[in-house]
């Protein structure tokens, strides 16, 4: 990027919102994934007009633009793989409108998930897809990755709540999709096309979100299973029982062992632990749903079922699940958190397969995840300084993805393809589908300006 281009960028965003200092370039070289590549410059846009002017300049000058929110993504979506400009939208952080009567929130992309949550709380409302990074991540990032969370089984993912977008396309045109209405079948669903598009088609500058009332009552239960198949059948049984829990989490044996080695929780080291939460607007209704869930746990040979009688007891039951990330993050120097997703009925074979793959490649994998929507987080733990171990992790990952696809699932349930899973796109998407994706990319971004190198769109 030459001096003239940098000056032009300064003109667009102002001196205070542009940087080519090394400290910014290094901090923008990475997200929460293992990928790293330095950009040549960084800019903080504060309006859609600035974003548009930058994308137009990028087309004229031929430099890549990688859009970024909080950089909490786990698949390299925000890593500027080809250099160029990182466009940080976190300073576009205004909640533009809250209309509870319409169930609508209009936000700029840099609004932090937790800030929207705080703004909605006094109204008894919530934006349900709650990623684990909710305190830090931005809603623009959530839209870009189609972020999920712990409540996906009942409440879906980000895409289920995006009604409309304002987007600067890769060719520099500004576009509106959708509207503020609760339903719309008007034309192609361009909104959905852009949700989860990882910043490769356009840059979202405004988001219209559907919001939901927050259920005030919950019931919480923990169950342990000494047999993986029983746990898998219990999950399917819950799904068939006529109720959908708001949370149905699973912790595998390796995860329970790791927690025991690093905390004083003294968990039973069994094949699987399931944590269920039901929610409703009355305690009676939450309890009624939980009875169904517990019935399925018991019918499928749960060794032990603990039901919380109070909020404090519920917090106790959540402890193991909440400790997963922090415990596993400290075990080895490096980790990758995958997010393969399979039909709920295939959870047991998937979990068993993960253990077999780990044993075959002599790698450490601990698994937990959202059993309620079949989304598992096998966490590979290793030392990147050990080349042989790194190679074995890569080989094991490839088998993991193949198994997920073979079981009727997907490479990624909520983190996105980005750089991490680009080499495996062909496992899940046939040549025709991939060709269509590339056509869509060209239609929106003919010069391949936006976030190049992601999603296997280049080749």
């Amino acid at each position, binding site marked *: 990027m030459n001096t003239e281009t940098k000056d032009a960028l300064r003109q667009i965003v102002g001196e205070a919102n542009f940087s080519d200092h090394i*400290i*910014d370039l290094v901090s923008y070289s*990475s997200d929460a994934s293992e990928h790293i590549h330095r950009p040549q410059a960084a800019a903080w846009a504060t309006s859609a007009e600035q974003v548009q002017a930058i994308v137009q300049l990028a087309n004229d000058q031929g430099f890549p633009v990688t859009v970024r929110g909080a950089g909490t993504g786990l698949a390299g979506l925000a890593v500027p793989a080809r250099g160029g400009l990182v466009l940080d939208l976190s300073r576009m952080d205004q909640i533009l409108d809250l209309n509870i009567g319409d169930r609508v929130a209009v936000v700029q992309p840099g609004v932090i998930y937790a800030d929207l949550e705080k703004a909605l709380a006094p109204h008894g409302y919530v934006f349900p897809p709650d990623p684990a990074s909710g305190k830090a991540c931005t809603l623009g990032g959530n839209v870009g990755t189609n972020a999920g969370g712990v409540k996906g089984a009942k409440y879906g993912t980000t895409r289920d709540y995006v009604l409309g977008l304002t987007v600067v396309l890769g060719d520099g045109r500004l576009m509106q999709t959708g509207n503020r209405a609760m339903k719309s079948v008007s034309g192609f669903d361009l909104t959905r096309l852009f949700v989860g598009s990882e910043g490769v088609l356009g840059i979202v500058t405004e988001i219209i979100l559907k919001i939901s009332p927050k259920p005030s009552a919950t019931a919480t239960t923990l169950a342990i299973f000494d047999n993986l198949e029983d746990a898998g059948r219990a999950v399917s049984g819950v799904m068939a029982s006529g109720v959908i829990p708001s949370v149905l989490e699973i912790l595998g044996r390796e995860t329970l062992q790791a927690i025991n080695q690093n905390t004083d929780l003294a968990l039973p080291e069994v094949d699987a632990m399931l944590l269920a939460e039901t929610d409703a607007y009355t305690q009676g209704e939450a309890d009624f749903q939980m009875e169904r869930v517990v019935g399925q746990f018991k019918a499928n040979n749960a060794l032990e079922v603990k039901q919380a009688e109070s909020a404090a007891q519920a917090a106790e039951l959540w402890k193991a699940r909440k400790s997963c990330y922090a415990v596993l993050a400290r075990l080895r120097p490096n980790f990758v958190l995958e997010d393969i997703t399979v039909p709920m009925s295939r959870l047991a074979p998937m979990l068993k397969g993960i253990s077999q793959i780990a044993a075959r490649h002599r790698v450490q994998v601990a698994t937990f995840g959202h059993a309620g929507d079949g989304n598992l987080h096998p966490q590979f733990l290793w030392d990147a300084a050990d080349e042989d171990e790194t190679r074995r992790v890569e080989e094991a990952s490839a088998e993991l993805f193949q198994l997920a696809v073979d079981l009727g699932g997907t490479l990624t349930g909520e983190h996105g393809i980005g750089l991490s899973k680009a080499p495996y796109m062909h496992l899940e998407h046939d040549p025709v589908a991939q060709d269509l994706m590339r056509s869509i990319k060209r239609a929106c971004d003919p010069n391949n300006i936006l976030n190049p190198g992601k999603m296997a769109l280049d080749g």
Partner: protein
Amino acid sequence: MPDTHPLLEEFRDQIQRCSRCGFCQAHCPVFGGTQRPALNARGKMLLLKEVLAGRLELDQELIETIFQCTTCASCAQNCPSGVEVPEIIKAARREMVGLGTCHPAFVGMDQVLDQHHNIYAEEEPEDFDRERGGQAEVVYFMGCVGQYREEEATEAALDLLDHLEVDYALIDEVCCSGVLEDVGFALKPHLAQKNIETILATGAKTLVTSCPYCLRTFQGRDEYLPLKQAGLEIMHLSQFLARQDLGLSTDLVVAYHDPCDLGRHAGIYDEPRQTIKTVAPNFVELADNRENALCCGAGGGVRGAFAQNSLAMARRRLEQMETSGAQVLLTECNSCVHNLSNAKLRAQKFEVMTTPQFLMELIEESS
């Protein structure tokens, strides 16, 4: 470029352990005030990884981020990977100072303490109309900020001790110089020696300070070990007050700001609240409190070196105060009260003061 960075190398495992999750962005006051990831804990760890890998020099360009950390430790408090960022930052600063690379404000601070007895290079200490020296049960240490910048807070603390009829002595105190270790330099043994001599000369059994940083220095630094060895009980004024029967009461709605040095660094959360809640039952917590309290932006030398951003951090804390609906914001650190007061906007109608100031106001009203 030097082949190694020995001080940083000690923390190599810790630095590598940062998994880049970015969760610290939710807690870092510098990031909150600037929205610039390079200044967040994760940004700093990424830079130090590059330094350790030999891809980046520990030079002038890094001053802006490495020296712009309040060492408030809220990142470490919330880090899933358990990275002790403040310790790493302090090591990096020492390394940089060793290489001749330092923010000029801190070079000046170190030089000032070679020539003067306080960090402000003030020649005339405020005497607060009280004698120095003598024998007493308690020795009261006010600290540089208390003596030269927040005199009203110190006056109130001393008046309160008088009101409670505490047998205390003041000394010709000098800067504890602990803060130098936060900004890449070393504590000054000659200053420590002078403080130790004058403190012990009072024959006091208890050392009380209103400065949380002085407290940490006296309790934690080897140079001050003779105080402990002499059997002196070292405590913060808030701990001392929690033992007193104040006999005061007010309906005012009061909130409390946890100073990072008193809270996360010294683990003192309950005693200040105990006193405040007894006197002001209409106590409310700020949105972020106790272990998760938001830093006022003054610590780690940031107020002196990056004043504008320091005030931006304080304003974020004051926004939480505004939301709380409280009428009075109390804190137990003169640096915090200094920064928060400076940042308070005229439109913000609440008051900011130390707990002793608040208590003295109530005492004066009731008399």
